[in-house]
């Protein structure tokens, strides 16, 4: 229990990951799948940022005078996650575009029905 208290953000991230994963796994609807994937990605971002965050420290933005480097949280994870979010967004974008295409071609975005139409 102590561990959960200490690292509730991480635990939350993992739970989120699981939720996203389950959505991805169990839904046939493409849009829902994409949502699930996004939840998954987000959970990872959360985890990453939580690693960088140290309770009681400031964001590494110089507001009033320089303080010791120990006074700031690690900025790198946040920076990285910006990239990660960009990547995730682009992937989501591509995925959505593909979903549209899918609907045009098959007339549905329910994957099981699409699979039923397999003609080979």
């Amino acid at each position, binding site marked *: 229990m102590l561990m959960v208290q200490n690292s509730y953000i991480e635990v939350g991230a993992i739970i989120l*990951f699981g939720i996203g994963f389950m959505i*991805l796994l169990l839904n046939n609807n*493409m849009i829902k*799948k994409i949502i699930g*994937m996004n939840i*998954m*990605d987000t959970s*990872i971002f959360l*985890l*990453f940022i939580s*690693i960088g965050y140290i309770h009681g420290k400031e964001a590494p933005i110089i507001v009033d005078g320089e303080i010791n480097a120990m006074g700031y949280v*690690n900025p*790198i*994870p946040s920076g*990285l996650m910006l*990239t*990660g979010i960009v*990547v995730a967004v*682009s*992937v989501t974008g*591509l*995925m959505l575009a*593909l*979903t549209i*295409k*899918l609907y045009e*071609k*098959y007339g549905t975005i329910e994957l099981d029905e*699409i699979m039923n139409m397999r003609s*080979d």
Partner: protein
Amino acid sequence: MSRIIELFPFITILLLLIFGAFLTPLIKKKSSIVRTNIAINIITMMMNLVTLVYVNNYGTFIFKFGHYGSPFGIIFHIGPVEVAIAMMFSFVITMVSWYSFYSIEKEIEEKRVGFYYILNSLLLASLLGIVYTYDVFNGYVFLELSTLAACGIIIVKDKKENIKAAIKYLMLSTLGSGLVLMGIAFIYSISGHLSMEYIHEAIVASSLAKENLLLISIVLFSIGLGIKSAMFPMHVWLPDAHTTAPSPSSAILSGLVIKAPVIFLIKIYYVVYGFEFVNSSRILQLMLIFGGTGMIMGSLFARRQKYLKRLIAYSSVAQMGYIFFGIGLGNELGLIMAIYHILAHGLTKSSLFLSAGSFIEQTGFKKIEDFKGIGKEMPVTLGIFTLSALSLIGIPVLPGFISKWNLALASIDSGMIYLLIVILLSSLLNAVYYFPIIINGYFGEDNLDGKVFKSKSKPIKELIPVILLTLAMIAIGFMSGPVIEFIRSGIYM
């Protein structure tokens, strides 16, 4: 001069990204886009060649972005392995582009031709990035980039099967990259670094304390990258994607795209975690099991296929099995052979796909049984196909044989002789599904009825890239000694 040469890896990526991917779309004339991109590809290849010679003469060098060394800056590590693989990548892409120059219009709509070339450049840039980089997160970004670009060259054909296959690929791929990112998060939480060497130092310092975390992260990396490189049980996206894509794209996908993550994985294993930890964890056995089953199951699946390209795609699964098998052996020779097989298979499989593509293009058939007697109509192309297939089957001197031979030696070295049976069984199965195609192609009275000699063969001009690929394949078979020595000089262990 040497300073300039050390810039080459960076310049190639920049060139590809800026000129190939971002600036050429501004050009209106389609043919100019194509020509520019091919030119850039050729330049890249040349530069890589120069770098290769340079590395061969002066040894490994490190390129620092903006002169910031690690841990703060991103660095490229350009050693023999990287440069050899980069050379292979750029060579294959150049040849495929050259090939597509004549034939891609027949497979995709004309308005998308330029798009296709742009994506090719983007893909090459990202792949080179994965190969060169010594920064995990940088690697992740390149990995995602390559996924997107690869998706692009699948859906460029714009048939409904393509869309479906691309979605399947993209979905799994993002799952995989999610896992990789998770893994990065874990090791970052342990080490606080992103540069591979520094992570390694930190891990060595704290390996005992954080062992579970390390194990979790290594599994995450293995599975995540395994999906991307079609490791056996997660190969399900591969056949669809490779079958439906246009043939040149298939060549690239099979030859290159699934190879880059393996390089990344090798780096993570041996540069990030280090040999001791990897060897003490059981991850290598896991690789060995997946690789070995892949080698056999891939071939078994391939044997049942009715469509030519699908068969070749499944064969890729088997061949990836060899690579993972080599990694899983956990000794130096095994690792060398994994890398050697990446080179060999990249060349072989791309020429296989290109020749299969020209069969399909010229005849309009897709099923294997329709290709009976194809050798009468397209003798040269089937000849190329035969050579490549023979390499995969393991006829001596051809690279496929070399890697099998050395993998076997490596498995004897590691004391697991029973693995030889896996290798041999797999190559036998290869023979079982490739030979009927060749035999039915060249021989058979009923097959050759009504076929006119060379009636459908492509002009030799259009086949030159494929022939060059085949020649390169034979060359690395014949020069396997020097090639292996070269790889050995830069192996991570």
